[in-house]
Structures are given as C-alpha cells and as structure tokens.
C-alpha cells in the first residue's frame, strides 16, 4: 500500500502529501506520525497539502486528529498550502479543522512553528530550540 513519506527536518517532521489521500492512507499517516513524533521527539509537524485537490470530511477530521495527537505528544501541527477551492469547500461543509494551525506555505509554516515554540504558547516547556 502506498504511504506518505515523513521527513525529518531538525526538530520538525515534514509531511508533503503528493497523492490522493484515501481513508486508508490517511489512517496510516496518522499512525506513522504518532510513532515518529515519539521516536524523534519532534516539537513540530508540518503537513503540506498544496497538491491536494480534494479534502473530504474524513481527511479533514484526520487532520484534526493528527493535530490532537501531536498536541498530546507536545508537538505543534501546522497544515500548510491549502488551496482556495479546498478552503471554500471545507467552509461550505461546515468543517473548520478545529485545533489545527494553518499557514500559506512551508516557509510561513516553519516561521509560525518557531514563533509558537519560542512564545511557549503551543508547547509548555520550550527546553530545546527549534533552530540549531
């Protein structure tokens, strides 16, 4: 089965979704991320959905769940690159991706993570710096 690669970038895990996200793949990604956050002690997760044309309610909920899981594991999740059409559809569906931070692109997403970690708003104990 296809799976979405999770890249290690310092303290951040970068996930760039380049394939159509079926329910199976989305669930697999959720499992993988949970394990990788624990294994690497990552403080931030960036999920890039620039390539996604469609975000259905299941994928939307999975993104919320991933954000919730990583919050429990002391990491901040930022979803980046959502297309305008996808955003409009989600709003029309009444999904607001509660608890998920968003940014326009990976760069702004990293910036946001850095800010959140240094403010200590997202993670209670900013013991390590994001940028080394």
């Amino acid at each position: 089965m296809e799976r979405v690669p999770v890249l290690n970038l310092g303290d951040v895990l970068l996930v760039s979704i380049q394939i159509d996200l079926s329910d199976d793949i989305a669930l697999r990604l959720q499992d993988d991320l949970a394990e990788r956050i624990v294994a690497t002690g990552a403080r931030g997760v960036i999920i890039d959905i620039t390539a996604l044309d469609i975000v259905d309610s299941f994928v939307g909920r999975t993104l919320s769940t991933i954000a919730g899981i990583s919050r429990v594991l002391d990491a901040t999740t930022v979803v980046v690159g959502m297309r305008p059409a996808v955003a409009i559809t989600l709003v029309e569906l009444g999904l607001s991706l509660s608890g998920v931070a968003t940014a326009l692109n990976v760069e702004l997403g990293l910036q946001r993570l850095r800010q959140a970690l240094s403010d200590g708003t997202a993670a209670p104990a900013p013991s390590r710096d994001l940028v080394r």
Partner: protein
Amino acid sequence: MDADVAARFAAVLQANRDALLKQWRAATVTKLRGRQTEAELAAQIEDVHGALVQAVSGGTPDLYGPEAAELRAVLTDLSTRRARVGFTPAETTAAVFALKDALFVAIDSDDAQQLRDYLAYATFVDEMGVYTFEAYAKMRESLITEQAEQLLEISTPVVKLWDGVLAVPLVGTLDSARAQVVMERLLQALADTSSPYAIIDITGVPAVDTQVAQHILKTVVAARLMGADCIISGIRPQIAQTVVALGIEFADIVTKASLADALTHTLRASGFELVRSERAG
C-alpha cells in the same frame, strides 16, 4: 386573419400609404420630446409600414411566421432604439398602436364588411404592439444583466497595502453571487502572494444583515483554513449598532473602525513598529 382579409389589408395599406403615414406620424410626433428627430421617426414608420405590407401580402399573415421576419426585425429595432434613449414602454407601444387610428380613418366605417376587416387588422396591430413591448422588455433586461455583470467585475478589486497585507474594499450591496466572487478572488490572491494578512473593508457596504455577515464570516474562516488572518475594517457607527442589535457574533475575528487602524494592527502583528522620524519634527 384569412387570406382574403390579408389581401384587402395589404391593399388598404398600399392604397392609402401617404395618408396613413401622415396620420400615423402626426399621432406620434407630439410625444417625441426631443429624444428622436422627426426625420428618424418618419423613416421608422415607413420601415414598419413597408415590412407590414410585405408580411400581410404573403397569404395568411402570422407575426411569428417566416414572411414576417422583416417586420419583427423592424419592430425590434424600433423598440431597442426607443429603450436606449429613454422612451417609456407605453410611449414605445403607442407608436405602433397609432397605426390603428390611422387605419380607421382610411376605411369606410359605414361599410359593415370593412368594419369587420378593420377588427382583423386591429387584432394584428395589437399583436405587433405586444411584440414591440416584449422586445422592449427584453432589451431592458439584457441591459440590466450586462450592468450587473460589469458591476460584479469592477467592484471586487484585491489591493496590496503592504508586504504581506492585502485589502478588499467592498463597495455596494453584498449578495451571495458577489460574496462568492469576493471570496474566491481574495483567497486566490492570498495563495498567489503568500500574504498572511487580509483586510476586508466594508466602508462601502450600505447595510449589514445576518446574510452579509454570514458571507463575511465564511470568507474569514476559509482564509484562516489557508493560514491567513482576516481583519474587518470600516465598520460605520450605524452598522455597529445593527450588528449588535441583530446579535451577530464576530467571535474572535479582529474588527477595526477604520482601514488605517486595521493596517496598523497588521503591521504590529507582523513585528513592525511605527516611529516618527526626528527630522520630520
């Protein structure tokens, strides 16, 4: 109208051409009020007369048949022109109905046969009048649609205020169609320019009801999903009162009274500090 009556109609029209035209012109010329020249009116009437003769000389006349195509074209042209220069619908159709009076003068009203024919003629002219009115209404409708489209096009600009700060000055009533266009344009511009801030300025929106507020809220939520923050500015005192009276909740969306305040807010949020230069005094 059967073929015999039609033939007699054509004959009456042709035999009394000059008298008819004169009478017809006299009845309509008083209502021009400078919106059309007399010569133009005379030409139009002559066109209608010519086309009418052509339409009725081909057997049983039918206004929607092929032999009346010319007549329909002439009538459409007449009403389109009149609609453009501001004739009322009544004045426009009156120009056609004036033919009835002229025809009545032309026939011998003591002759029962001719009177019966006249009724048939009048019915046909009535049809022409209705057609003219329809053409007039169609013309007006297309004008309105055209203008609405133009309005949709011109009234939703997305402007860049600062690096990473976009603004949408909304002008005019915000209905669902416009709100959709505004939303799409703004979100696309946010994606294209990677601007993390957008200011929606509603100074030019005459009234904010629950529906308009709903549209604005949707836009803000969609922008937030994409990772951009929206600020609503230009809330006039009257609108602030309506919003509260209607119980509309803008939740955690930042709202500012003026565009300047909103810009200052975004600059602060992105880490800029405004300092007046010493030299400027």
